[in-house]
């Protein structure tokens, strides 16, 4: 049993992969709590797809250097979230429609760009599904630094983000800078998405944002506990997913997301059973 656990750790790529999976899981889960509470999963999904053209341009500009890919992707995400809020601001286009337009347009642009650069041998599937076992030591440091900054910002604005998510009107009557805080929160979402790309890829990031947070939401009615629990679920799912990926040769991003999903299903089923038992004992 012990050797089963220790064996993969002999490989440095596994060590780096595990570190990144845990870091990314924690950041996405904490940011994801706000996304789940505000009902903005669609925005999260849209932002994750909308960064594809940023990745493509970044790849062209730097031949795959990760820090520069990070900035290009972040730029594309911020551009998309600003466009969405500008389009929906007048009220003539509803927000989910604006999200749909921007997300599909940006994603199409990304695919178009990548399809033109065959000579660079870009592997589209790495963008779409991640390549966590290919992370370099530099990537680990970048991920750790960015994760720390995101978590510190959330800690610093904890009470403001809570007011904003619970009651936007209150935020305004308290003269909090509501609009700036909303933009900050969507930038943090964009950062969490970009930093998770190598782990799970564009197509699956939304699961990292939503699934652990939703699982924690089922288990507790306290925001702090919800964030801690979501982080713990995401981090352990990252580890379990990578081991599954190592031993059963499953794509690593998919394995991590499936581990999160399995925890969610278990908790959800457990609660269904418990509430039906309670209903039976009550009647």
């Amino acid at each position, binding site marked *: 049993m012990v050797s089963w656990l220790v064996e993969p750790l002999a490989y440095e790529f596994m060590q780096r992969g595990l570190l990144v999976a845990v870091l990314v899981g924690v950041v996405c889960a904490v940011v994801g709590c706000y996304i789940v*509470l505000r009902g903005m999963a669609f925005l999260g999904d849209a932002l994750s797809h909308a960064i594809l053209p940023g990745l493509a341009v970044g790849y062209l500009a730097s031949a795959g250097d990760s820090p520069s890919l990070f900035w290009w992707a972040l730029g594309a995400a911020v551009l998309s979230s600003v466009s969405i809020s500008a389009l929906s601001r007048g009220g003539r286009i509803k927000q989910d429609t604006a999200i749909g337009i921007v997300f599909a347009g940006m994603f199409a642009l990304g695919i178009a760009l990548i399809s033109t650069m065959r000579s660079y041998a870009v592997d589209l599937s790495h963008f779409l599904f991640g390549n966590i076992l290919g992370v370099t030591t530099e990537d680990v440091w970048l991920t750790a630094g960015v994760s720390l900054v995101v978590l510190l910002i959330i800690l*610093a*604005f904890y*009470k*403001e983000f*809570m*007011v904003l*998510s*619970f*009651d936007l*009107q*209150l*935020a*305004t*009557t*308290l*003269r*909090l800078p509501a609009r700036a805080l909303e933009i900050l929160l969507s930038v943090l979402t964009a950062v969490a998405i970009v930093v998770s790309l190598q782990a799970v890829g564009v197509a699956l990031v939304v699961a990292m944002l939503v699934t652990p947070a939703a699982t924690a*939401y089922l288990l*507790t*009615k*306290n*925001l702090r*506990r*919800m964030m801690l629990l979501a982080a713990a679920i995401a981090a352990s799912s990252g580890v379990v997913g990578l081991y599954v990926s190592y031993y059963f040769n499953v794509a690593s991003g998919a394995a991590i997301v499936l581990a999160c999903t399995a925890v969610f299903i278990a908790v959800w089923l457990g609660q269904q059973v418990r509430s039906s038992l309670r209903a039976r004992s009550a009647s």
Partner: protein
Amino acid sequence: MLKNPFTASGRSLVHPESSHALELRDLSVRFNGLIVLEDLSLRVEPGLRVAVVGPNGAGKSTLFNVLAGLLPPSSGEVRVHGHLPAQYLCLAYVPQSSLIDWDFPVSVRDVVMMGRAGLVGLLRWPGSRDLQQVERSLERVQLSQLAHRQISELSGGQKQRMLIARALAQEADLLLLDEPLAGLDLPSQEQILSILADLKQQGITVLFATHDLELAAEHFDRILLLNRKLIAYGTRKEVLSGENLALAYGGHMQVVETKQGPVWIGDIGGHHGHDVEGRHG
């Protein structure tokens, strides 16, 4: 001017001595050319309980949104204790209960503490003074025992009292309450009305939007009758005349004298048929 003990803070605004709790000058609101509020001018003395009444679509909610600074007026000016909207923190909006996400993972105390967020300030954590204010606010609405409850476990009356406590924690001198008694049972209604009477003792001004003319007449110091324009503002006797009611409700509201006192019978919205605009429950 009566002094609210909650505003002994150095961080709160100091009000000019002679200021009115609320002053409107030629306030108008238009949406896409449609006039929602027209030329409202009004002065409210501090410490009064004012019932804001009028038919559906009279602009009660719009007025509250403008007062709270959520909606800019098309023209005219709002001053709360002499301050312009961008300056005042001394106003609290107690929203309709239906606008709150009651499944949000917070406790009663967490929500009341949210009222402090503006006073605590950015990048700061609540201190002992903030905690004290929260406890006192909870005490004043008799929710100290339930401070740890998750908000979804509260009854309708407790939810409304929690939102009032949040306004008190905010150290507000002017409270806007939008239909706070809607859907509450009679004991809960009485409890909230007695909290409002207690607030009057503290010099806190209350604006209370309601459909219920009888409630307005019975429990409030002043009545503001609104239907796009300000029809009348004053005491019950001054405001609830047949003439004013006809102006506000367009002949759909009648005063019927009974042995128990006047009863207002009205036809709101048309599709409800005849509703008695009295106290329900």
